[in-house]
């Protein structure tokens, strides 16, 4: 297995079209107003190579917004566990989103394992795509160390001008490359160019907040009673956009839906958001996170504190989606800086 | 012959909205005969005052859920007229298509679910599920297809979403055009079957000389979205002058205002359009007319239903043609407009008056708005087809009752109900706008 191969940029279309012949291929396409979205494509021409993080991250393929987990028949008193999946290739996943998928993998592999997630994941091939520069001012991938590839892909594409450098990371990746005879072994020149790009990136990507990587967690440890949350309380609309677009938010609701015969039906799970009012409410009208400030705090803690305690990893990928999507313009970097300032 | 008959149909069913029929015959003499419209007034006209002209469509669409697309198009036409804005050719084409879908949808609903039960001697389509299951399924299928096409085109049929002043907020993509085309081509066999069914139906015999009013024009197109006002009595005028035609007056027993043109009353709707513009129908529609024995000028109001069916064929074929053209030429997506930006100056606003005259399923519909320099509505007026037909229906009833006095009270009642239903009256519409001229009691 060759580690590095190259692909002429003009051959990308050939590669994608050929792949799309045999399976579903999804890739970033433009939605207008500098918005992008992963959608099914049949040719490379539809793909936008220079895109900022899509509206929804690729998690929508790993943990669909709604999925059936069991189907039932009441009269026969039967219950069947269901898996919904689709074999596909995701092309063009940025490093932050690769990290997001890794986070989800950890959560769903944690015991008891989530079979639905794990089986579905095994049917998806991931082709990463390097960001040569910052996406926009909302990104904060450096502070969480996601601006450079850290695995989690089958193939990884880096744009080197006329060619893509392609890193083959898995056997599955090798198979994909083997399917279409457009790849060449990487030459010395290309490898040098890749190294040069990485060097250049180290200069471009700088810590985006006033806190060092290793100090983030301690900062959040101390910030439970911060005034910053009070400020967010006034601004947050509790619309749930920030959690829905977050690559590492995975909370869900479980809902029964009988069919029209009222005998058969399905139980499905559906993304839920901790930002909505009923999320933590229990009987007797007790709500453990009634205030918007508490819910916002919870969201941040679930990125920078709780998962670190549990999985030793930040669950913010630095993609900037939550800041980009927020109508009230609550910005992750600003929040962190405000907390840091207050802590001083 | 001395006979007393008292027909009082309260809450006329299988029409949109609330209407009552009152017939009173004493000693063989018709004393009283009227159609009452008792829909609670909703004051749309008053509510529009002070709203932005760009919101008029959204609001007036809610006058009637059945002809929401028609109100939408008439409202947009009036608004654009007031603003001095001319829509693009592509926009007009898509609007024509939308109007066809509305026409098709509404006619199918009327023919199958509202009229057919009468002709098959049952009270509603529900018993037909047992006796004529295939027919009911076909009707529902046809209706659903119209609905699905509207979903793709404008988001939904009831209160369309993307069709606004200036154009469309979302244009169908290539695969959407294909989907719509496939749906409509798939509708053809059901349309054939409908024609076959219609051939077997017997309509009551009753003729009355009537003035038929509708849009007319000088090009070769069956006019729905644009044209002058014309009548079978030779009347012709610009849409701006519609008030001269409609001559609205209020009658005490009805919350819908009545209208009259040159004669004591006139009729609008599918039959009027058929009578006025038969020549311009699609070939297939003409063939259908021939097969059904319809030749202008038809003066039996019960045959309005048959005219509707002929229009269905026309709308279907014309829609397919429009879609083909759009597909061949390709859509210009740069024309997709952003809602709200128009209100912020994309379309300049000036004071003015605008008129909209659109052929909707039940006949010609007028919207008129007067706006101030800021684009706020100062005056609004709408004349609804059913409002125009009301007066004519009463005249029909007055002519019909003496001819059928021999029949039993039940038969008379049914014939009267069927007459009213033949006009496909949309009473919820007509009760909402009452302005213009009031003739005292």
């Amino acid at each position: 297995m060759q580690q590095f191969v190259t692909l002429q940029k003009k051959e990308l279309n050939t590669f994608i079209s050929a792949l799309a012949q045999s399976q579903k291929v999804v890739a970033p396409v433009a939605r207008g107003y500098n918005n992008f979205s992963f959608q099914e494509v049949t040719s490379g021409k539809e793909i936008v190579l220079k895109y900022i993080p899509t509206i929804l991250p690729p998690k929508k393929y790993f943990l669909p917004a709604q999925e059936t987990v069991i189907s039932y028949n009441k009269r026969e008193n039967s219950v069947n566990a269901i898996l919904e999946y689709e074999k596909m290739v995701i092309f063009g996943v940025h490093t932050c989103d690769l990290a997001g998928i890794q986070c989800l993998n950890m959560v769903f592999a944690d015991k008891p394992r989530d079979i639905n997630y794990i089986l579905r994941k095994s049917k998806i091939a991931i082709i990463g795509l390097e960001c040569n520069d910052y996406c926009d001012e909302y990104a904060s991938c450096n502070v969480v160390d996601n601006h450079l590839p850290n695995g989690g892909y089958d193939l990884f594409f880096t744009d080197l001008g006329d060619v893509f450098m392609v890193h083959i990371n898995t056997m599955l990746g090798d198979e994909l490359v083997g399917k279409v005879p457009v790849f060449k072994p990487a030459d010395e020149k290309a490898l040098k160019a890749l190294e040069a790009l990485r060097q250049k990136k180290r200069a471009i990507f700088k810590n985006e907040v006033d806190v060092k990587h290793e100090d983030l967690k301690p900062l959040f440890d101390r910030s439970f009673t911060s005034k910053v949350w009070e400020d967010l309380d006034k601004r947050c609309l509790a619309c749930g956009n920030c959690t829905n677009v977050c690559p590492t938010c995975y909370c869900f609701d479980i809902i029964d839906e009988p069919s029209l015969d009222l005998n058969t039906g399905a139980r499905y799970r559906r993304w839920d958001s901790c930002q909505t009012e009923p999320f933590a409410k229990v009987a007797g009208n007790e709500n453990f996170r009634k205030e918007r400030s508490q819910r916002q705090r919870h969201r941040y803690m679930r990125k920078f504190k709780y998962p670190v305690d549990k999985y030793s990893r930040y669950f913010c990928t630095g993609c900037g989606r939550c800041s980009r999507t927020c109508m009230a313009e609550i910005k992750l970097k600003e929040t962190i800086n405000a907390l840091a300032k207050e802590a001083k | 012959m001395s006979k007393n008959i008292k027909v009082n149909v309260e809450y006329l069913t299988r029409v949109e909205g609330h209407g009552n029929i009152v017939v009173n015959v004493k000693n063989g003499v018709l004393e009283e005969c009227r159609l009452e419209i008792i829909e609670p007034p909703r004051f749309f006209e008053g509510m529009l005052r002070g709203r932005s002209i760009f919101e008029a469509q959204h609001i007036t669409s809610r006058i009637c859920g059945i002809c929401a697309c028609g109100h939408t198009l008439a409202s947009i036409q009036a608004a654009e007229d007031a603003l001095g804005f001319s829509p693009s050719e592509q926009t007009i084409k898509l609007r024509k298509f939308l109007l066809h879908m509305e026409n098709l949808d509404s006619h199918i609903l009327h023919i199958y679910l509202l009229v057919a039960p009468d002709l098959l001697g049952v009270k509603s389509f529900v018993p037909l599920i047992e006796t004529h299951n295939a027919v009911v399924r076909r009707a529902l299928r046809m209706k659903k297809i119209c609905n699905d096409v509207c979903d793709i085109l404008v988001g939904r049929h009831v209160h369309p979403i993307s069709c606004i002043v200036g154009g469309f907020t979302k244009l169908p993509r290539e695969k959407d055009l294909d989907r719509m085309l496939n749906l409509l081509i798939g509708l053809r066999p059901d349309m054939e079957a409908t024609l076959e069914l219609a051939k077997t139906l017997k309509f009551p015999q009753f003729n009355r000389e009537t003035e038929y009013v509708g849009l007319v024009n000088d090009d070769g197109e069956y006019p729905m979205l644009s044209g002058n006002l014309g009548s079978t009595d030779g009347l012709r005028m610009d849409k701006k002058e519609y008030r001269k035609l409609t001559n609205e007056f209020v009658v005490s027993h009805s919350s819908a205002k009545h209208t009259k043109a040159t004669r004591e009353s006139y009729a609008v709707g599918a039959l009027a359009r058929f009578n006025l513009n038969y020549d311009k129908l699609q070939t297939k529609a003409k063939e259908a007319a021939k097969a059904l024995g319809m030749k202008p000028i038809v003066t039996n109001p019960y045959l309005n239903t048959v005219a509707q069916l002929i229009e269905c064929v026309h709308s279907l074929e014309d829609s397919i043609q429009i879609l083909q053209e759009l597909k061949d030429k390709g859509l210009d997506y740069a024309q997709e407009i952003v809602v709200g930006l128009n209100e912020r100056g994309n379309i300049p606003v000036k004071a003015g008056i605008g008129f909209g005259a659109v052929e909707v399923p039940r006949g010609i519909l007028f919207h008129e708005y007067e706006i101030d320099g800021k684009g706020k509505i100062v005056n609004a007026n709408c004349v609804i087809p059913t409002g125009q037909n009301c007066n004519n229906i009463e005249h029909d009833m007055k002519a019909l009752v003496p001819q059928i006095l021999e029949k039993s009270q039940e038969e008379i009642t049914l014939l009267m109900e069927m007459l009213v239903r033949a006009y496909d009256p949309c009473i919820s519409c007509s009760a909402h706008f009452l302005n213009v001229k009031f003739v005292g009691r």
Partner: protein
Amino acid sequence: MRKPKVAFFDFACCEGCQLQVANFGEALLDILGLIDVVMFREAMSEKSDEYDIAIVEGSITTSHDIERIKKIRATAKVLIAYGSCATIGGINGMKNNFDLEDIRKYVYKNDAKYFETIPTHPVHQIVKVDYYVHGCPVYQPEFVKVLKAALAGLPYNVPDYSVCVECRFNENVCMYDKGITCLGPVTRAGCNSWCINNGNICYGCRGLLSNPAKDGQMDILKKHDIPLEWVTNKMNMYNKPRELEIDEQKHKG
């Protein structure tokens, strides 16, 4: 098991929500397999005073309406408010933006006296409502859900989160990105962000969230340089009759 008897009633409305029922296509026959529709004036001549479930469309706008809805409530075991006009007053509520006397005179001139009217009320302000199907028009999949819940005797909880949630699921470009306001953030979800999917804004036809973030909303307007009036204006399109409840609460409190 006897099929429950269902009757449709309409008050001031456009009847578009009833039409949504006819738009089910052949699936309508499956629904009719579950229930026995005894009254549906728009499409049926049959009439009945016996029914288990009353599906009520339209708002209450005359004193006669008040009597009628009370009678319906007394007969029906279950009452479903159907469509925005019935659930929140809807577009009819725009009337409440005006002085009633004034609007009556404007529309009916000298004949105003024949046309009695009262402020527009949603049904629940007059009688108890068991289920709500919001929307102008109703979203068919939600109606099916409510119907199934009503038939099974289960509660149906209208989502109390915003339209934005669904809008994100659908990956729409947010209207605020285009520099336009949208009532999505304060409107309860359940319509699958129907209007935004089709390039329009949300007009709030499903009614406001139980706890909309007022301050946040104001903040946004300021940021995007949108006059407050613009939004209150839009809010008053569908949600005006809400004030009648707030007034009432003030009276009580």
